[in-house]
């Protein structure tokens, strides 16, 4: 069952494969795009940081939603990878606060969680315009990078 989950969970775009082909183009020549990883689990945050750095992105890390918000306003990342269950300020609140700021209304945010409840999905995707909603244990870092590349502006 689980192997198929990966395919269907990508949201809103069917051109995964063609986009993935483009991802092999060198990114070093253009100004580096910034990825903000908001995740309290260090092991997971580090894995993503390694992966995105390896792909040529500038990586910023925040251990909770509050730091995430501060870093967003200070550094203006091109995309945010957002965990939901975190101390201090959880991901849902951070996303909501972010959307209240005109500057970040359309900033791509990929929700990355293990709590795939209907409420979480609805609130983040429909109300607060998250670009995608991924279950951590059902995707690998390559698929996360691939998904992120589709939304990076």
């Amino acid at each position, binding site marked *: *069952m689980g192997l198929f989950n990966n395919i269907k969970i990508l949201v809103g775009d069917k051109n995964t494969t063609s986009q993935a082909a483009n991802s092999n183009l060198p990114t070093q020549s253009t100004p580096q795009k910034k990825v903000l990883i908001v995740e309290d689990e260090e092991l997971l945050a580090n894995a993503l940081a390694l992966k995105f750095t390896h792909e040529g992105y500038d990586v910023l890390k925040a251990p909770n939603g509050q730091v995430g918000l501060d870093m967003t306003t200070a550094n203006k990342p091109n995309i945010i990878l957002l965990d939901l269950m975190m101390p201090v300020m959880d991901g849902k609140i951070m996303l909501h606060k972010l959307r209240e700021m005109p500057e970040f209304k359309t900033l791509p945010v990929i929700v990355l969680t293990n709590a795939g409840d209907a409420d979480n999905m609805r609130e983040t995707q429909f109300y607060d315009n998250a670009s995608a909603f991924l279950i951590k244990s059902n995707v690998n870092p390559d698929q996360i990078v691939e998904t992120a590349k589709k939304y990076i502006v």
Partner: protein
Amino acid sequence: MLLSFVKKMFANTHSSKQSEETSDHANSTHPLAQLEETPISSSLQEKLRYESLLANIGEGLVVTDKSGHIITFNKAAVSILGWSEQEAIGRALSEIIDIEYNNQPETGGAKSHTLYFIRKDKTKFPVATTVTSYVQGTNILGTITLFRDITNEQNIDRMKNEFISLASHQLRTPLAAIKWYTSMLIKGDAGSLSSEQLKYMESVNTSTERMIDLVNSLLNISRIESGRIIVEPAAIEVKKFIEEIVDEVKIRYADKKQQINLTIPDNFPHVTFDPRLIRQVYVNLLTNAAKYTPEKGNINVKISQKDTDMISEVSDNGYGIPENEQNKMFEKFYRGTNILTQPSDGTGLGLYFIKSIIELSQGKIWYKSKVNEGTTFWFSLPLAGTPAKKGAVILDN
């Protein structure tokens, strides 16, 4: 046997006022103790014995006559409902027991269609009941209601579901870490691996995926069992929908070189069901067929219409299910004893899971299976469509 039991009970409680008083009196001193002390006729002895039996039954017992008035109200009923026997006898059943159905619980893990009784003090509690009528010839003489408070069972059930759900969420984080780092090692992100190292990492990866599958299945089952699953039907183009699933399974099991054929009329109508849920049914039936059919076997999917139903048939010429185990095959964790020796990665949760989904979608599932000849599953879905159901959870597709 029940009938004669009830008749005696009926005769006893329906006698004169005086005998009612004696029966009250008998309740206060123990009737069985009384039997030993006083010489009485054997028929009276029998009556008292039954009376004592009924009074001391652990479950609540309320018997009415045919006009619906209570004629027996046992000790357990008194303690559960809070009405005394004197208050209850002679009154209409509906005056004493107020009921309430809860079809769509908003929160918590309560199952749908829970029946509640209301106590004298207006508090309510969930009950399990058996209601039967008792007859003499063709005459209905009244009803017998047996009930018990199932608050504890419900709490335990809820705690079990919460535990599974919590454990599954907590398990997913370390599993994700194992999966991610394994995938990065295999990809060569930390330097290229020797072919031996790569082989070991592939084994780690396979086991991790199995564990993730198991956790996902447990989580999905706890969601189904919670009764809080959302059913969101949409009109589905059946042919395209099933073709996509068949293609996925073909790719996943390509190394088994099996033939997977789909037969469906070109003009098959759109059918309304929840694609997220029904997808799981096809995926499970097809992966079961692929897993439990040897290499180069045949798997056939056939979609047809019968009366008011859409019928899906998934058949294989695989290992089959032993006849003496077939009554257990929809039970949680059941796995055929004949396939335990085969190299496959089943969890024993698939059939249980899809049966729940099909029933939730107002369909039925049935099968035919013979060891070493194969298995055929059929399931129906109403052509008129599955009704939507509100809830709080969905499956992670």
